[in-house]
């Protein structure tokens, strides 16, 4: 089977995917797809399988059954050596931020480009542009510990988008933020999406997707409970 096939118009496709942890089902027979340039919310209560679903997309987990395709990559069939190259097509906004505490904001964002082998001059230009997009240009030399939760979240978003990946995944991106800051973060996602990036946001915060006009996929105890547009 091909590891990579970019003929599909679908950016993400799950086909009858099941994932178990120690005989406990995390996801059961999940089938859905996300088109290129679409912004979709994955919602459901805690433990419903949202994070597992995202992990399957960036190949931190392997499905026990079914197939997953991401921008033409069959993630279930990927060799370990190909996983880094799949992940370079995905910007990830982690729930726990995963910022490098001993590196400045600039260095944190630059890391996504260094990993891709981008030259120093280009790194400088793109990192400042990306920080400007999340309104953190002035915090480039600060260390993460000195930033508020909302600022740290925006650094993570900046790092996720700096390499301009075709897909951005966000796991509870507003989990620890006040409503005003959460609105700001959502505006950034909308801006990125407007430029053609496919965005998948996992959240249990109803206010984020209510009346957004976006597709919402609802999970309940690992099963796909509903799929509708708000």
């Amino acid at each position, binding site marked *: 089977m091909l590891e990579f096939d970019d003929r599909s118009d679908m950016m993400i496709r799950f086909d009858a995917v099941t994932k178990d942890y120690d005989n406990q089902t995390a996801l059961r027979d999940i089938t859905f797809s996300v088109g290129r340039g679409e912004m979709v919310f994955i919602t459901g209560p805690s433990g419903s399988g949202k994070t597992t679903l995202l992990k399957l997309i960036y*190949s931190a987990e392997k499905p026990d059954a079914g197939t997953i395709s991401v921008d033409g990559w069959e993630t279930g069939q990927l060799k*370990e050596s190909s996983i*880094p190259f*799949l992940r370079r097509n*995905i910007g990830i906004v982690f729930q726990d931020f995963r910022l490098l505490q*001993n590196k400045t904001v600039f260095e944190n964002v630059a*890391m996504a480009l*260094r*990993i891709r082998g981008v*030259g120093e001059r280009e790194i400088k230009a793109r990192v400042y542009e990306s920080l400007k997009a999340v309104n953190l240009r002035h915090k480039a030399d600060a260390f993460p510990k000195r930033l508020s939760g909302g600022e740290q979240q925006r650094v993570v978003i900046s790092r996720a988008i700096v390499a301009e990946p075709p897909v951005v995944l966000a796991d509870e991106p507003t989990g620890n933020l006040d409503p005003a800051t959460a609105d700001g973060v959502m505006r950034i996602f909308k801006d990125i999406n407007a430029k053609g990036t496919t965005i998948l946001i996992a959240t249990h915060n109803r206010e984020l997707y209510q009346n957004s006009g976006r597709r919402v996929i609802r999970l309940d105890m690992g099963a796909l409970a509903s799929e509708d547009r708000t």
Partner: protein
Amino acid sequence: MPAPYAFTLALRSLFREKWINLLSVLTIASGLLIISLALFTVYNIEAATGRLPEQFSMILYLDNGVQKETVDGAVAALRKQSAVLSVRYIPKEEALKELKATLKNSGYVFEGLDENPLPDALEVRLKKEALGEEAVRKLAADAAKIKGVKEVDYAAKFLSALHYLKVGMQTIGLILIVSLGAGIIFVCYSTVKILFYRRNDEIETFKLLGATPSFIRTPFLIEGAVIGVSGGVVSLAGIFAFHYIVLLRLSASMPIFSMILFPSRLFLFLPFAGMFLGVTGAAIALGRLKY
């Protein structure tokens, strides 16, 4: 990963974890210094035993009243042997003269001696490379068959002792090199493993951002190399300090120490050996990265 950035990461980590790295450097330096001292000892014993064969000779006692033609034939036969360096004919008169010279303080043993009891003899010196126990035994057996040769005498026990001394020293040297080399690899392994665990969160983030194994490994391998090279340089300084501070001073007061050789070029390999062992330890510590 662009090489300069890998170096930057490695150097930052070396500085950040300076105490553990310094301890590793000193441990590696101690190990390499002991290896160097072992090599130094083996080298000197090899050199000393290498000079001993120059004193070694085989004596062929000839039949009584042997004719000159027979002696010439025996000499020619011996010179044809590839192991033979030189052959000297010692008439019995000369042999007695040499014996008297040797025993000049015990001249009474020759009192009442009417007739020369010594036989004519051939002294055979052997080439250095032919001085193996087996080769000498074979040559002695062949020489005993030559017409006119009555008896062959050589220092069999000396050769055997020399052989075992060399083998013993080489074995001890090899054991030291292998065991301390393994020890040094283990030190580098442990150091890099500790550094790796301390940076585990960072490495996990790198993986999630799309870093390849070589991007993650390269700074650690550089760290292993730097720690190993540093250990090698410190041990090099240590062995030269030993030469200048201990050996040269001892030679000045006790001339016997001036016979000790210091193979300075041999020790220039130490930084490279340190680098090799450091990188090996780091590579083993990193193992296979799982995604």
